[in-house]
Protein backbone atom coordinates (compact mmCIF):
# COMPACT_ATOMS: atom_id res chain seq x y z
CA UNK A 1 0.00 0.00 0.00
CA UNK A 2 0.99 3.56 -0.62
CA UNK A 3 1.53 4.54 2.95
CA UNK A 4 5.27 4.70 3.02
CA UNK A 5 7.38 5.19 0.01
CA UNK A 6 10.94 5.88 -0.89
CA UNK A 7 11.53 9.56 -0.87
CA UNK A 8 14.37 11.90 -1.39
CA UNK A 9 15.05 15.53 -0.74
CA UNK A 10 16.32 17.82 -3.46
CA UNK A 11 16.71 21.59 -3.11
CA UNK A 12 14.81 21.30 0.16
CA UNK A 13 11.77 19.81 -1.58
CA UNK A 14 10.35 16.44 -0.76
CA UNK A 15 10.14 14.03 -3.68
CA UNK A 16 8.40 10.68 -3.76
CA UNK A 17 9.99 8.02 -5.92
CA UNK A 18 6.69 6.32 -6.59
CA UNK A 19 5.15 9.39 -8.10
CA UNK A 20 8.25 10.39 -10.02
CA UNK A 21 8.73 6.97 -11.60
CA UNK A 22 5.04 6.36 -12.32
CA UNK A 23 4.67 9.86 -13.71
CA UNK A 24 7.68 9.48 -15.96
CA UNK A 25 6.39 6.16 -17.20
CA UNK A 26 3.00 7.65 -18.00
CA UNK A 27 4.53 10.65 -19.72
CA UNK A 28 6.65 8.41 -21.90
CA UNK A 29 3.71 6.14 -22.70
CA UNK A 30 1.43 9.06 -23.57
CA UNK A 31 4.04 10.70 -25.75
CA UNK A 32 5.00 7.63 -27.71
CA UNK A 33 1.39 6.51 -28.04
CA UNK A 34 0.38 9.82 -29.61
CA UNK A 35 3.62 10.16 -31.50
CA UNK A 36 3.21 6.69 -32.95
CA UNK A 37 -0.42 7.22 -33.91
CA UNK A 38 0.24 10.53 -35.61
CA UNK A 39 2.92 9.37 -38.04
CA UNK A 40 2.29 9.23 -41.77
CA UNK A 41 -0.92 11.22 -41.75
CA UNK A 42 -2.97 11.11 -44.92
CA UNK A 43 -6.18 12.71 -46.11
CA UNK A 44 -7.69 9.26 -46.31
CA UNK A 45 -7.04 7.99 -42.81
CA UNK A 46 -5.91 4.46 -42.14
CA UNK A 47 -5.18 2.39 -39.04
CA UNK A 48 -3.73 4.40 -36.18
CA UNK A 49 -4.73 7.69 -37.70
CA UNK A 50 -8.36 6.60 -37.60
CA UNK A 51 -8.06 5.77 -33.92
CA UNK A 52 -6.40 9.06 -33.08
CA UNK A 53 -8.93 11.03 -35.10
CA UNK A 54 -11.78 9.27 -33.42
CA UNK A 55 -10.18 10.14 -30.12
CA UNK A 56 -9.73 13.78 -31.05
CA UNK A 57 -13.35 13.92 -32.17
CA UNK A 58 -14.44 12.33 -28.93
CA UNK A 59 -12.64 14.82 -26.67
CA UNK A 60 -13.66 17.71 -28.92
CA UNK A 61 -17.22 16.53 -28.43
CA UNK A 62 -16.83 16.61 -24.64
CA UNK A 63 -15.50 20.16 -24.70
CA UNK A 64 -18.02 21.37 -27.27
CA UNK A 65 -20.87 19.97 -25.26
CA UNK A 66 -20.02 22.14 -22.26
CA UNK A 67 -19.30 25.57 -23.66
CA UNK A 68 -20.50 27.93 -26.39
CA UNK A 69 -19.22 26.94 -29.80
CA UNK A 70 -17.01 30.00 -30.24
CA UNK A 71 -14.87 29.12 -27.21
CA UNK A 72 -14.67 25.39 -27.72
CA UNK A 73 -11.81 25.23 -30.27
CA UNK A 74 -9.51 27.13 -27.91
CA UNK A 75 -9.85 24.54 -25.16
CA UNK A 76 -10.16 21.39 -27.23
CA UNK A 77 -6.45 20.65 -26.94
CA UNK A 78 -6.62 20.96 -23.16
CA UNK A 79 -9.51 18.52 -23.11
CA UNK A 80 -7.71 16.11 -25.40
CA UNK A 81 -4.50 16.24 -23.42
CA UNK A 82 -6.16 15.93 -20.01
CA UNK A 83 -8.28 13.03 -21.17
CA UNK A 84 -5.43 11.00 -22.56
CA UNK A 85 -3.13 11.77 -19.65
CA UNK A 86 -5.69 10.88 -17.00
CA UNK A 87 -6.93 7.88 -18.92
CA UNK A 88 -3.45 6.43 -19.30
CA UNK A 89 -2.63 7.25 -15.68
CA UNK A 90 -5.77 5.48 -14.48
CA UNK A 91 -5.09 2.37 -16.53
CA UNK A 92 -1.37 2.30 -15.80
CA UNK A 93 -1.77 1.01 -12.26
CA UNK A 94 -4.16 -1.70 -13.39
CA UNK A 95 -1.67 -3.12 -15.82
CA UNK A 96 1.51 -2.60 -13.90
CA UNK A 97 2.19 -2.33 -10.20
CA UNK A 98 5.67 -2.72 -8.97
CA UNK A 99 7.06 -2.68 -5.48
CA UNK A 100 10.39 -3.21 -3.86
CA UNK A 101 11.09 -4.12 -0.30
CA UNK A 102 7.46 -3.75 0.71
CA UNK A 103 7.19 -0.31 -0.83
CA UNK A 104 5.56 0.65 -4.06
CA UNK A 105 7.50 2.10 -6.90
CA UNK A 106 5.06 1.99 -9.82
CA UNK A 107 1.32 2.52 -9.77
CA UNK A 108 -1.31 4.88 -11.17
CA UNK A 109 -0.10 8.43 -10.61
CA UNK A 110 -3.77 9.39 -10.15
CA UNK A 111 -4.03 7.10 -7.13
CA UNK A 112 -2.08 9.70 -5.18
CA UNK A 113 -4.02 12.67 -3.80
CA UNK A 114 -1.02 14.97 -4.20
CA UNK A 115 -1.04 14.38 -7.94
CA UNK A 116 -4.77 14.69 -8.44
CA UNK A 117 -4.90 17.83 -6.29
CA UNK A 118 -2.03 19.26 -8.32
CA UNK A 119 -4.03 18.64 -11.47
CA UNK A 120 -7.18 20.02 -9.93
CA UNK A 121 -5.36 23.08 -8.59
CA UNK A 122 -3.77 23.90 -11.92
CA UNK A 123 -7.14 23.51 -13.65
CA UNK A 124 -8.78 25.88 -11.15
CA UNK A 125 -5.99 28.44 -11.56
CA UNK A 126 -6.42 28.12 -15.31
CA UNK A 127 -10.18 28.71 -15.16
CA UNK A 128 -9.68 31.88 -13.11
CA UNK A 129 -6.95 33.12 -15.43
CA UNK A 130 -8.98 32.59 -18.59
CA UNK A 131 -11.97 34.17 -16.85
CA UNK A 132 -9.95 37.33 -16.19
CA UNK A 133 -8.36 37.24 -19.64
CA UNK A 134 -11.70 36.85 -21.36
CA UNK A 135 -13.92 39.25 -19.45
CA UNK A 136 -11.56 41.60 -17.62
CA UNK A 137 -10.90 41.70 -13.92
CA UNK A 138 -13.98 43.71 -12.98
CA UNK A 139 -16.39 41.43 -14.73
CA UNK A 140 -14.57 38.44 -13.30
CA UNK A 141 -15.11 39.81 -9.80
CA UNK A 142 -18.73 40.54 -10.56
CA UNK A 143 -19.14 36.86 -11.28
CA UNK A 144 -18.90 36.26 -7.53
CA UNK A 145 -21.95 38.39 -6.70
CA UNK A 146 -24.21 36.81 -9.25
CA UNK A 147 -27.11 36.46 -9.31
CA UNK A 148 -27.36 38.45 -6.04
CA UNK A 149 -24.78 39.93 -3.71
CA UNK A 150 -25.47 37.88 -0.61
CA UNK A 151 -24.53 34.72 -2.48
CA UNK A 152 -20.88 35.80 -2.37
CA UNK A 153 -19.87 33.37 0.40
CA UNK A 154 -21.64 30.53 -1.36
CA UNK A 155 -19.91 31.36 -4.62
CA UNK A 156 -16.53 31.43 -2.92
CA UNK A 157 -17.28 28.16 -1.23
CA UNK A 158 -18.33 26.72 -4.57
CA UNK A 159 -14.95 27.60 -6.07
CA UNK A 160 -13.19 25.87 -3.21
CA UNK A 161 -15.54 22.93 -3.48
CA UNK A 162 -14.86 22.62 -7.19
CA UNK A 163 -11.17 22.47 -6.51
CA UNK A 164 -11.54 19.81 -3.81
CA UNK A 165 -14.08 17.60 -5.54
CA UNK A 166 -12.33 17.68 -8.90
CA UNK A 167 -9.15 16.27 -7.41
CA UNK A 168 -10.57 14.03 -4.73
CA UNK A 169 -13.13 12.36 -6.99
CA UNK A 170 -10.39 11.20 -9.29
CA UNK A 171 -8.13 10.16 -6.46
CA UNK A 172 -10.87 8.32 -4.60
CA UNK A 173 -12.01 6.27 -7.54
CA UNK A 174 -8.60 5.22 -8.69
CA UNK A 175 -7.16 4.69 -5.24
CA UNK A 176 -10.10 2.59 -4.15
CA UNK A 177 -9.88 0.55 -7.32
CA UNK A 178 -6.23 -0.23 -6.79
CA UNK A 179 -6.69 -0.85 -3.11
CA UNK A 180 -9.35 -3.44 -3.77
CA UNK A 181 -7.21 -5.01 -6.45
CA UNK A 182 -4.40 -5.35 -3.94
CA UNK A 183 -6.71 -6.87 -1.36
CA UNK A 184 -7.91 -9.42 -3.91
CA UNK A 185 -4.30 -10.19 -4.73
CA UNK A 186 -3.72 -10.57 -0.99
CA UNK A 187 -6.32 -13.34 -0.95
CA UNK A 188 -4.18 -15.34 -3.30
CA UNK A 189 -0.96 -14.54 -1.53
CA UNK A 190 -1.85 -14.34 2.16
CA UNK A 191 1.70 -14.65 3.48
CA UNK A 192 3.79 -14.09 0.43
CA UNK A 193 3.17 -17.62 -0.89
CA UNK A 194 0.64 -18.78 -3.42
CA UNK A 195 -2.34 -20.36 -1.71
CA UNK A 196 -5.59 -22.02 -2.72
CA UNK A 197 -7.22 -18.61 -2.46
CA UNK A 198 -6.07 -18.01 -6.03
CA UNK A 199 -9.00 -20.13 -7.22
CA UNK A 200 -11.53 -17.45 -6.32
CA UNK A 201 -9.13 -14.51 -6.24
CA UNK A 202 -8.27 -14.82 -9.92
CA UNK A 203 -11.80 -14.45 -11.37
CA UNK A 204 -12.55 -11.71 -8.85
CA UNK A 205 -9.40 -9.91 -9.87
CA UNK A 206 -10.30 -10.19 -13.55
CA UNK A 207 -13.79 -8.86 -12.93
CA UNK A 208 -12.56 -6.00 -10.79
CA UNK A 209 -9.85 -5.07 -13.26
CA UNK A 210 -12.41 -4.88 -16.01
CA UNK A 211 -14.58 -2.70 -13.86
CA UNK A 212 -11.61 -0.53 -13.00
CA UNK A 213 -10.81 0.00 -16.65
CA UNK A 214 -14.37 1.23 -17.02
CA UNK A 215 -14.06 3.47 -13.95
CA UNK A 216 -10.76 4.85 -15.18
CA UNK A 217 -12.35 5.83 -18.49
CA UNK A 218 -15.38 7.34 -16.76
CA UNK A 219 -13.19 9.35 -14.40
CA UNK A 220 -11.12 10.74 -17.24
CA UNK A 221 -14.35 11.66 -19.00
CA UNK A 222 -15.75 13.31 -15.87
CA UNK A 223 -12.56 15.22 -15.22
CA UNK A 224 -12.49 16.67 -18.75
CA UNK A 225 -16.20 17.41 -18.68
CA UNK A 226 -15.95 19.28 -15.39
CA UNK A 227 -12.88 21.17 -16.55
CA UNK A 228 -14.86 22.33 -19.58
CA UNK A 229 -17.79 23.26 -17.38
CA UNK A 230 -15.65 25.33 -15.02
CA UNK A 231 -13.90 27.11 -17.88
CA UNK A 232 -17.21 27.73 -19.57
CA UNK A 233 -18.61 29.23 -16.36
CA UNK A 234 -15.76 31.67 -16.12
CA UNK A 235 -15.52 32.52 -19.78
CA UNK A 236 -19.02 32.64 -21.15
CA UNK A 237 -21.47 35.46 -20.58
CA UNK A 238 -24.57 34.51 -18.74
Amino acid sequence: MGGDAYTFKLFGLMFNWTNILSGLAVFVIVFFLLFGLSRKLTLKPTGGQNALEWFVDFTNGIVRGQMPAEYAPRYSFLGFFLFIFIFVSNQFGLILQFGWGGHELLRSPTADPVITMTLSFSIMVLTHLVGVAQNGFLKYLKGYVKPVAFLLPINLFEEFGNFLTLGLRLFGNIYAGELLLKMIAGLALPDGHLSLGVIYALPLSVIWQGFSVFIGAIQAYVFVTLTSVYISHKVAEE
Partner: protein
Amino acid sequence: MFAQSVLAESNSLYVGDMIFYLVSLVILMLLVKKFAWGPITKMMQDRADKIANDIDSAEASRNEASKLAEQRESELQNARSEAATIVGNAKQSGESQRTQIITSAQSEAQALKENAQQDAEQAREDALKRAKDDVANLSIEIASKIIHKELSAGDQKALIDSYIEGLGKE
Protein backbone atom coordinates in the same frame (compact mmCIF):
# COMPACT_ATOMS: atom_id res chain seq x y z
CA MET B 1 22.32 14.93 -3.88
CA PHE B 2 19.72 12.48 -2.68
CA ALA B 3 20.13 13.72 0.83
CA GLN B 4 17.77 11.35 2.56
CA SER B 5 16.74 8.35 0.60
CA VAL B 6 14.56 7.26 3.43
CA LEU B 7 10.99 6.25 3.92
CA ALA B 8 9.03 9.42 4.33
CA GLU B 9 6.33 10.05 6.81
CA SER B 10 3.20 9.36 4.81
CA ASN B 11 1.55 12.59 5.88
CA SER B 12 4.21 14.87 4.48
CA LEU B 13 3.33 16.94 1.42
CA TYR B 14 5.47 16.13 -1.57
CA VAL B 15 5.90 19.64 -2.90
CA GLY B 16 8.63 18.36 -5.15
CA ASP B 17 6.21 15.97 -6.82
CA MET B 18 3.81 18.79 -7.50
CA ILE B 19 6.48 20.85 -9.20
CA PHE B 20 7.77 17.83 -11.05
CA TYR B 21 4.31 17.04 -12.37
CA LEU B 22 3.50 20.61 -13.30
CA VAL B 23 6.73 21.07 -15.20
CA SER B 24 6.63 17.73 -16.92
CA LEU B 25 2.95 18.14 -17.79
CA VAL B 26 3.74 21.44 -19.47
CA ILE B 27 6.64 19.88 -21.36
CA LEU B 28 4.52 16.90 -22.38
CA MET B 29 1.74 19.23 -23.46
CA LEU B 30 4.09 21.13 -25.73
CA LEU B 31 5.52 17.93 -27.17
CA VAL B 32 2.10 16.42 -27.79
CA LYS B 33 0.87 19.63 -29.34
CA LYS B 34 3.83 19.78 -31.66
CA PHE B 35 4.04 16.15 -32.67
CA ALA B 36 0.51 14.78 -32.44
CA TRP B 37 -2.21 17.38 -31.97
CA GLY B 38 -0.88 19.87 -34.50
CA PRO B 39 -0.52 17.47 -37.41
CA ILE B 40 -3.71 15.55 -36.71
CA THR B 41 -5.94 18.60 -36.32
CA LYS B 42 -4.37 20.17 -39.39
CA MET B 43 -5.09 17.01 -41.34
CA MET B 44 -8.66 16.90 -40.05
CA GLN B 45 -9.13 20.55 -40.97
CA ASP B 46 -7.66 19.91 -44.41
CA ARG B 47 -10.07 17.05 -44.88
CA ALA B 48 -13.01 19.14 -43.72
CA ASP B 49 -11.99 21.88 -46.15
CA LYS B 50 -11.56 19.42 -48.96
CA ILE B 51 -14.95 17.86 -48.35
CA ALA B 52 -16.56 21.28 -48.20
CA ASN B 53 -14.82 22.24 -51.43
CA ASP B 54 -15.89 19.02 -53.08
CA ILE B 55 -19.47 19.59 -52.06
CA ASP B 56 -19.34 23.16 -53.35
CA SER B 57 -17.78 22.19 -56.63
CA ALA B 58 -20.24 19.33 -57.07
CA GLU B 59 -23.06 21.78 -56.49
CA ALA B 60 -21.52 24.21 -58.97
CA SER B 61 -21.03 21.59 -61.64
CA ARG B 62 -24.55 20.32 -61.14
CA ASN B 63 -25.87 23.86 -61.61
CA GLU B 64 -23.68 24.21 -64.66
CA ALA B 65 -24.99 20.98 -66.09
CA SER B 66 -28.61 21.92 -65.52
CA LYS B 67 -27.94 25.33 -67.05
CA LEU B 68 -26.38 23.67 -70.06
CA ALA B 69 -29.32 21.31 -70.38
CA GLU B 70 -31.71 24.24 -70.22
CA GLN B 71 -29.71 26.08 -72.82
CA ARG B 72 -29.64 23.04 -75.06
CA GLU B 73 -33.37 22.64 -74.65
CA SER B 74 -34.04 26.24 -75.62
CA GLU B 75 -31.63 26.02 -78.52
CA LEU B 76 -33.37 22.91 -79.70
CA GLN B 77 -36.67 24.72 -79.44
CA ASN B 78 -35.23 27.61 -81.42
CA ALA B 79 -33.85 25.32 -84.07
CA ARG B 80 -37.15 23.54 -84.33
CA SER B 81 -39.13 26.76 -84.78
CA GLU B 82 -36.52 28.06 -87.20
CA ALA B 83 -36.82 24.91 -89.24
CA ALA B 84 -40.58 25.28 -89.19
CA THR B 85 -40.32 28.86 -90.47
CA ILE B 86 -37.86 27.84 -93.15
CA VAL B 87 -40.15 25.08 -94.34
CA GLY B 88 -43.11 27.46 -94.20
CA ASN B 89 -41.25 30.08 -96.17
CA ALA B 90 -40.15 27.57 -98.74
CA LYS B 91 -43.70 26.32 -99.11
CA GLN B 92 -45.00 29.85 -99.52
CA SER B 93 -42.34 30.82 -102.03
CA GLY B 94 -42.92 27.58 -103.93
CA GLU B 95 -46.62 28.32 -104.01
CA SER B 96 -46.07 31.85 -105.24
CA GLN B 97 -43.53 30.67 -107.77
CA ARG B 98 -45.98 28.08 -108.98
CA THR B 99 -48.78 30.59 -109.46
CA GLN B 100 -46.32 32.96 -111.09
CA ILE B 101 -45.17 30.29 -113.49
CA ILE B 102 -48.71 29.31 -114.27
CA THR B 103 -49.78 32.89 -114.87
CA SER B 104 -46.75 33.64 -116.97
CA ALA B 105 -47.30 30.47 -118.93
CA GLN B 106 -50.90 31.34 -119.37
CA SER B 107 -50.12 34.83 -120.54
CA GLU B 108 -47.42 33.58 -122.81
CA ALA B 109 -49.79 31.04 -124.29
CA GLN B 110 -52.37 33.79 -124.69
CA ALA B 111 -49.84 35.98 -126.44
CA LEU B 112 -48.76 33.14 -128.65
CA LYS B 113 -52.35 32.39 -129.48
CA GLU B 114 -53.05 36.01 -130.28
CA ASN B 115 -49.98 36.24 -132.46
CA ALA B 116 -50.98 33.12 -134.24
CA GLN B 117 -54.48 34.45 -134.75
CA GLN B 118 -53.07 37.72 -135.96
CA ASP B 119 -50.76 35.92 -138.32
CA ALA B 120 -53.55 33.78 -139.59
CA GLU B 121 -55.73 36.85 -140.08
CA GLN B 122 -52.91 38.58 -141.83
CA ALA B 123 -52.32 35.62 -144.03
CA ARG B 124 -55.98 35.36 -144.81
CA GLU B 125 -56.19 39.01 -145.59
CA ASP B 126 -53.09 38.83 -147.70
CA ALA B 127 -54.41 35.86 -149.54
CA LEU B 128 -57.73 37.56 -150.01
CA LYS B 129 -56.03 40.67 -151.27
CA ARG B 130 -53.89 38.71 -153.60
CA ALA B 131 -56.89 36.81 -154.80
CA LYS B 132 -58.72 40.10 -155.32
CA ASP B 133 -55.84 41.47 -157.30
CA ASP B 134 -55.63 38.28 -159.27
CA VAL B 135 -59.35 38.40 -159.95
CA ALA B 136 -59.06 42.02 -160.98
CA ASN B 137 -56.17 41.31 -163.27
CA LEU B 138 -57.86 38.27 -164.63
CA SER B 139 -61.04 40.13 -165.21
CA ILE B 140 -59.13 42.94 -166.85
CA GLU B 141 -57.34 40.46 -169.06
CA ILE B 142 -60.50 38.67 -169.86
CA ALA B 143 -62.19 41.95 -170.37
CA SER B 144 -59.44 43.19 -172.62
CA LYS B 145 -59.56 39.96 -174.58
CA ILE B 146 -63.27 40.23 -174.96
CA ILE B 147 -63.00 43.88 -175.74
CA HIS B 148 -60.37 43.21 -178.40
CA LYS B 149 -62.56 40.64 -179.97
CA GLU B 150 -66.08 41.98 -179.85
CA LEU B 151 -65.94 45.61 -179.27
CA SER B 152 -67.28 47.33 -182.36
CA ALA B 153 -67.11 50.98 -183.14
CA GLY B 154 -70.70 51.47 -182.36
CA ASP B 155 -70.47 49.76 -179.11
CA GLN B 156 -67.40 51.73 -178.29
CA LYS B 157 -69.13 54.87 -178.95
CA ALA B 158 -72.04 53.96 -176.76
CA LEU B 159 -69.68 52.94 -173.97
CA ILE B 160 -67.82 56.18 -174.08
CA ASP B 161 -71.03 58.04 -174.01
CA SER B 162 -72.29 56.23 -171.05
CA TYR B 163 -69.02 56.93 -169.31
CA ILE B 164 -69.17 60.55 -170.07
CA GLU B 165 -72.75 60.64 -168.97
CA GLY B 166 -71.62 59.02 -165.67
CA LEU B 167 -69.03 61.75 -165.24
CA GLY B 168 -71.53 64.41 -165.85
CA LYS B 169 -73.87 63.04 -163.23
CA GLU B 170 -71.20 62.91 -160.60
